[in-house]
């Protein structure tokens, strides 16, 4: 009996024994084309820093959020963590992420898009790989509708949609997400911002969703959707690849698919349209992958060394080039000829400059849901655009006060 207990104790102590130089990293690049790049980057880091081992754990976007949450609540987070841009606030506001403000100072100028990582003027994560949503157009279908060039204004997009509506159900002018949680808002916000609307006031204390601009945006979005193909993002991307959609809002993953298997039709990417076609208004949604260090990490310095390594321009260029992602966070990497030589990659970088992300707020998940509910209610004709946004604004204002 005593021996058994002793053995058990020994086993436990072996598990908890600190291994210096071992770093844990949770990341999301799991598809077979990009995972090897992660492995190579890790090997390179290990070569540059002898004696250090990086242990990589793969997460998926479908259940990563839950796994991270559980790890945090159990007090067992990894040393370095890749986060989606709109997850940073909830973890940061619960004091689970390391305040990187002094450390990040040296990186501030080299990297773009700190806004989603900044809460109360403190930096909690480092922008790594960014992503913007923009318009994809099918040239063949544009021509069929009598368009010589891509729509720049809202009513041009609407016209394209109307003209192609007569070919339904084979061909659609526009593809819209309907009722897809955590995705729908990313499709509506570009319209809101392009109209000059905002979600929250600058001080973050009032909801501005039901402003006249917001109502105008939702009205237009609902009208546009009436004649559009409604589907999930994956199905919309498929429909575009099959040549059934003249236009769709999507991200770099669709461009990657188009490059990997060039379709029979001509395609192009373009900035989001705006009500009056003015360039500065052609706003879109920007998301991205950020790197954070949990406050409970025992190897904060080593973790920071690894974060610095990952965002280094040469490593970003290497990763983005091979993964066919046009939007690294590093300014120097973006200036690489590889991205500048391709018109579509250039559009992504250009759109990124005109893009916003969701406002940093600890209650963002709930705000997001209120926005999506409003869009849904207007799309399904349960409420008018004004009523839906009024109700959402009331709900969000109550949240802001709590």
């Amino acid at each position, binding site marked *: 009996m005593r021996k058994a207990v002793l053995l058990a104790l020994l086993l436990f102590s072996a598990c908890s024994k600190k291994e210096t130089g071992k770093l844990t990293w949770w990341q999301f690049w799991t598809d077979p084309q990009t995972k090897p790049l992660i492995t190579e980057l890790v090997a390179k880091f290990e070569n540059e820093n002898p004696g250090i081992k990086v242990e990589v754990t793969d997460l998926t976007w479908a259940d990563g959020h839950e796994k991270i949450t559980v790890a945090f609540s159990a007090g067992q987070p990894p040393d370095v963590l890749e986060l989606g841009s709109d997850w940073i606030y909830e973890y940061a506001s619960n004091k689970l992420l390391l305040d990187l403000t002094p450390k990040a100072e040296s990186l501030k100028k080299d990297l773009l898009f700190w806004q989603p990582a900044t809460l109360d003027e403190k930096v909690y994560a480092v922008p790594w790989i960014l992503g913007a949503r923009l318009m994809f157009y099918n040239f063949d279908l544009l021509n069929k509708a009598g368009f010589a060039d891509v729509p720049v204004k809202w009513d041009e997009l609407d016209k394209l949609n109307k003209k192609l509506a007569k070919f339904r*159900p084979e061909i659609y002018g526009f593809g819209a997400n309907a009722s897809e949680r955590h995705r729908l808002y990313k499709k509506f916000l570009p319209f809101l911002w392009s109209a000059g609307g905002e979600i929250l006031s600058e001080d973050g204390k009032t909801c501005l969703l039901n402003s006249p601009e917001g109502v105008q945006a939702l009205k237009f979005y609902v009208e546009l959707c009436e004649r559009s193909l409604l589907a999930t993002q994956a199905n919309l991307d498929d429909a575009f690849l099959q040549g059934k959609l003249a236009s769709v809002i999507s991200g770099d993953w669709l461009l990657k698919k188009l490059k990997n298997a060039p379709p029979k039709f001509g395609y192009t990417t373009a900035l989001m349209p705006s009500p009056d076609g003015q360039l500065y208004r052609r706003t879109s949604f920007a998301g991205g992958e950020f790197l954070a260090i949990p406050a409970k990490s025992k190897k904060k310095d080593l973790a920071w060394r690894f974060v610095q390594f990952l965002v280094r321009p040469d490593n970003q260029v290497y990763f983005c080039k091979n993964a066919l992602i046009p939007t690294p966070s590093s300014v120097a990497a973006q200036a690489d000829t590889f991205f500048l030589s391709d018109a579509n990659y250039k559009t992504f970088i250009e759109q990124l400059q005109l893009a916003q992300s969701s406002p940093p707020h600890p209650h963002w998940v709930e705000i997001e849901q209120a926005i999506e509910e409003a869009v849904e209610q207007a799309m399904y004709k349960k409420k008018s655009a004004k009523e839906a946004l009024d109700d959402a604004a009331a709900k969000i204002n109550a949240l802001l006060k709590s």
Partner: protein
Amino acid sequence: MAGKNTGYLLPLPWTLTLLLIWIFPLVWSLVLAFADYNLLSGELNWIGLENFRRLLSDPSFQRALWNTFLFVIGTLPFTTLFALLLALALNRPVWGKNFFKASFFIPTITSLVVVALIFTKLYSEGSWLYRFLGQFFNLPSGGFLLSDKTALPSIMIMDIWAAIGYYILLFLVALQNVPQELYEAAKVEGANSWQTFWAVTFPSIKPMLFFIVTLNTIKSFQVFTEVFVMTKGGPLGSTTTAVYFIYEEGLHRFKMGYASAAAYLLFAIIALFSYFLFKSFKSESEVLAPAQTKA
């Protein structure tokens, strides 16, 4: 080593597993049901029955319970009835019996996630099913899962299809255990097939029927995977079921206390249903007891 205490050591791994993985979460979530507990910050405030009070007046929870109830009513009778009919058909000497048995059983051993993904495609606009039905009916644009009227029924139909194989198998087991001499006796008495079914087959498979209905009720009340994969509770909350509600509250909004309270309410509802099922089956089976001595 082999002392007199060694015996206690042997069941230790399993006992520990049971305590840690089953009993502890059960008790802990009951504790949390009476608290306001934020999973991320770890703050815990006692609020007594407040969670339950808030739940009962929360329109989205009421909606979730209603949807769950609709789901149970819409799947349970059909799954059971179809399974019984198909099992009766397969219990006879039909041509290609094993092929049909396997065909009906395949959905059961296929991962529900895979089934849900296939049906998501099937239900979307542009699928052959959508086009075929579109010739006769006025279908919602965007496919079946993007309309608040058809989303829940679509999931129910898929669920019936996916669950039926398992219950066919259970019914077949029960049917094959019906004593042959009872059928012979019925034949001698001149009973027609309808009478034989009610006097011999039905009473004999009744315990199995009870088992299937209870199991199916509990499973239907806990519907989650389908919703998670296919609709995420949308559109307009028309497919938000009780367990999906618990998941959203707990793991998306980190309101663990609120989610635990909802879970315990669901538990109470399922327990109540099971109790009534138990009672109704028991009182009848006492009357019919002699017929099922061997089953």
